[in-house]
């Protein structure tokens, strides 16, 4: 197989409050022989908030990010569900509206760039599943996670709106019964936990403005995983990770029950199975202690 190569859109969180996500992404890519060219010129995607204030600016900035992936002639790979959604949504809107695309390109021309629509946009989770292949991953597992019950937490913006999925990755998810993370857990040798909240919202995006709503959603998600007998949770989204890992005190208070579980990034889970060290994967950066390794 030709070496896989992507333009990596890190998003902001992997560079700030989840450094372990960046470390584990690099460690896993290295093990799998995937080359990642970091888009250091990229800006924030607007995280599903900028568009509430200034939709056109959000489009221009996301188009600029994709334009840099296009310059490299590579598929853009994201490592955050919300980055994935904002980028994929921008691509969808521009690719389906010539007038809008022309308007955006008029702006990009001011800085010598053009959005063409030639680069695909996918999430690292789907790059592993669709392009690398789970069978191949299975063959490379050196430390099967067989003693663990692992609760997948999908995160909204990878699975909804489902109409975007056909355009961004081949392993199309059923938002009511998603399977990608479960498949990944199984490929790593773990047992998956089935629970009602696995495809529900963690509440991250309203943590500041609607803290009670956010805390209840977080609490319910962790409680669901705990009731499913999970040893830990795993998520492809650093924002879900942040919410589930750092907000357990608020969540416990909101639902009237102590809830806490280790919440690993999917890259950390894959890294463990591939034999990376806990230090390489940044497992010491979590608030909920990861004490099983």
């Amino acid at each position, binding site marked *: 197989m030709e070496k896989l190569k992507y333009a990596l859109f890190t998003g902001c969180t992997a560079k700030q409050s989840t450094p372990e996500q960046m470390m584990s992404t690099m460690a896993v890519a290295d093990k799998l022989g995937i080359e990642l060219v970091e888009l250091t010129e990229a800006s924030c995607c607007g995280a599903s908030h900028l568009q*509430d204030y200034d939709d056109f600016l959000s489009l221009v900035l996301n188009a600029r990010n994709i334009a840099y992936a296009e310059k490299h002639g590579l598929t853009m790979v994201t490592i955050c569900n919300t980055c994935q959604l904002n980028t994929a949504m921008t691509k969808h809107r521009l690719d389906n509206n010539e007038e809008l695309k022309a308007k955006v390109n008029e702006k990009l021309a001011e800085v010598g760039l053009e959005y063409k629509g030639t680069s695909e946009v996918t999430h690292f989770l789907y790059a592993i599943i669709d392009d690398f292949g789970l069978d191949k991953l299975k063959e490379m597992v050196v430390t099967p996670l067989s003693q663990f019950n692992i609760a997948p937490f999908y995160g909204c913006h990878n699975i909804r*709106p489902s109409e975007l999925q056909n355009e961004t990755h081949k392993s199309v998810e059923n938002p009511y019964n998603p399977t990608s993370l479960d498949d990944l857990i199984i490929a790593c040798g773990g047992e998956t936990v089935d629970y009602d909240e696995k495809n529900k919202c963690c*509440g991250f995006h309203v943590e500041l403005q609607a803290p009670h709503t*956010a805390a209840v959603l977080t609490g319910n998600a962790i409680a669901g995983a705990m009731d499913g007998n999970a040893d830990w949770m795993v998520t492809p989204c650093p924002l879900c990770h942040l919410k589930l890992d750092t907000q357990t005190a608020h969540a416990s208070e909101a639902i009237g029950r102590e809830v806490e579980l280790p919440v690993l990034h999917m890259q950390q889970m894959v890294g463990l199975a591939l034999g990376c060290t806990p230090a390489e994967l940044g497992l010491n950066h979590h608030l909920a202690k990861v004490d099983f390794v």
Partner: protein
Amino acid sequence: MSTEHKITTQKVNFKVFRFNADEDYLPYYENYDMEVTSEEVVLDILNRIKWDHDGSFSYRRSCRHGICGACAIKVNGRSTLACKESMNDMVELFGNELVIEPLSKKRVIKDMIIDKADFWEKHDAVTPYLVAEIDENPQSENLVSPEDADKLDEADLCIQCGACHYACPAVEVNEDFFGPAAFAAAYRFSADVRDNSTSRLADVNEEKQGVWDCVKCFECAEACPKEINPIGKITKLHQMAFQEGIAKNNVAVRHAVGFKKSIMKNGVLDEGGLVLYSEGPAIVKHLPVAFRMFTKGKIVPPWGITKSENLDEIQKLVKSSSTAKF
């Protein structure tokens, strides 16, 4: 070439939610095994349960045409218009074990029939009608151009089925929250060029009840059988608040505006700075968690943030592309 249409049948097990508020203490599930044909829709199954198995089984339906909104239920957790949803598609999505439930289990009166009072109260609360001074003896018609009609973005096609409302996690958690259908209705009239309401947009911007409490989960977009995309309308209501100059200077609004400020400064976000800008002095309540994050290396101080390369490009684009004011 044969154009013969082949009807196929398959065995499906239905696990059906049953509850009668007058008699039952707890709900229970009844199993029904049936041969289902590829021609049937979910409503046919509900009918067959009632006609062939148990006459007391209760549900709502009226038009059988996907336009009255009465028959909305959940199949395997997915909101569905029973009269529109084909059994073939359901089996393709979920396999041969299907769980039939009402839209909201906690609001059940009998089997699939729920009390939608909260839905209608929320609907009423957003001034869901056109507010306009009408000349009693108009000299001409009040014409709307096709371009202006397009601005409604099909929000007028809502059939009030409640599928989105009872799929919305914010509705479940926050009893004040208007919910996606009410927002779709609010947008439908606020976007109408003939409308002069002065209160609707302010109402849907109030904290606790309004658009700022939407968690952006896209459940409503997924659930809507009429493809109205309520969260798309919610986004537009956010934007209207800025355009009309009614966005209040509160934590929710500053959180949206803060992104532009942060991007202008660094290209990437300054996550701590964003929280500070959004919360103001109230940021102190985050300090215990922030401290724990700091000790785990999860917080980067403002001076440690790696700015985007070619930041000048980003700044130029922010200046030249941004029209929103706050």
